């Protein structure tokens, strides 16, 4: 990334190869619409290019996820404004039904995840699905490691209950 911030855009290809699937999956867990996820992922790379000078060293993954997260919240706010009658949850639910037959297990996880609020879901997705460590998440969301860890453990406990409820139903 250092080379990109110095103006070498060819290094962007390398960054894209390394992060595009991860970012796409992060969004896919949050939004569930592949087209929207692709657009969001694309926007992350655009922002990386545009704001390359604001990268002042440090863990690059944290920086790029910070951008990804901000873009997600922008998108989320827009969705909220445009959807007067349908909540995101409803849209997500509808989409889920299409995939239930094929991937039953995943659908349960998703349903459980969808029962969480956006902030909690985001933490679980980053930590459990993306495999980002607590200290890095703390950096991304602007908190401290202990608080993030405690929070994630609490969410997992809550999720466990939700998950087995959906399994039972």
């Amino acid at each position, binding site marked *: 990334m250092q080379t990109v911030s110095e*103006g070498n*855009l060819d290094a*962007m*290809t390398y960054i*894209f190869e390394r992060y*595009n*699937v991860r970012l*796409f*999956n992060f969004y*896919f*867990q949050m939004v569930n619409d*592949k087209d929207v*996820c*692709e657009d969001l*992922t*694309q926007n992350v*790379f*655009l922002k990386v*290019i545009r704001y390359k000078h604001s990268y002042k060293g440090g863990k690059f993954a944290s920086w790029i996820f910070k951008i990804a997260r901000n873009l997600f919240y922008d998108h989320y706010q827009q969705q909220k404004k445009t959807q007067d009658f349908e909540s995101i949850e409803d849209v997500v639910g509808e989409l889920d039904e299409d995939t239930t037959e094929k991937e039953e*297990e*995943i659908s*349960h*996880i998703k349903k*459980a995840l969808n029962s969480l609020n956006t902030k909690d879901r985001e933490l*679980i997705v980053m930590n*459990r*699905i993306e495999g980002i460590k607590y200290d890095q998440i703390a950096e991304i969301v602007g908190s401290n490691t202990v608080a993030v860890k405690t929070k*994630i*453990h609490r969410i*997992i*406990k809550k*999720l*466990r209950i939700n*998950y*087995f409820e959906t399994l039972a139903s």
Partner: protein
Amino acid sequence: MIHCKYIENNMVDYIDRALSAKESESIKNHITACTTCKKAFDKTSILMNSFANEPSVQPSAKLKTSFEQLLAEEKAKQTKVIALTPKKSSFKSFLQIAASVAILFTGYLIGGYQESQNSKQELMAFQNEKKQLKENMMLAMIDNSSPSKRIKAINYTEELTTPNTKILQALIERMQQDSNSNVRLSAAEALSKFTDSELVRTSLIETLTTEKDPSIQIEIIQILVDIQEKRALAPMRKLLEQPESPDYLKTQVHIGIAHLI
């Protein structure tokens, strides 16, 4: 003895194998003994396994192509930006501005100078023209049959500072030969301004001998006395000897001679 609450709090780290060997061992022992904790552990493990097993979804090829397009666009922009802002541009453009200002200013000065030169030349040409016109008018009018026109022509010469010989000769001719005494008097008065000329001086002395009108004679005597012309003494003494000279003329001649000697 470990409390169930402790197990619950460290469950995730235990499954993540993030605890020390000693801690892991004690939790393991508790779980095998406590059914509640065993249940919670089993459920958490299943949940966390499902997370781990969540397959990674591949974005479509569209993402890569649109990224490549984006990158190409950004590259083009970057090169454009570089081309538009060369490093020395600010200094260079400053020089260019300074040079253009200097050129403008010099242009203004040259223009102003030329303009004043032109107007000066025009004014001089105009003045010369005016002078020429007056001279011509004077020469044309001086031969006019009307005495008043001739006097007017003579008066034009008052405005001339350095009349040419042609004008002076015309004036002398009027003073010596004009039939009208008023014209002759005016001509004499006009000539009194140009006594620097030797031609005028000799003609004045000459007129003193030929002129018969006492008023003109007195005028000429006064002019000659003013310029202290000693050559006028001889014709003046002659005037005293002439029997037809009136007394008042003789008195003036006496005064004049007294001034000259």
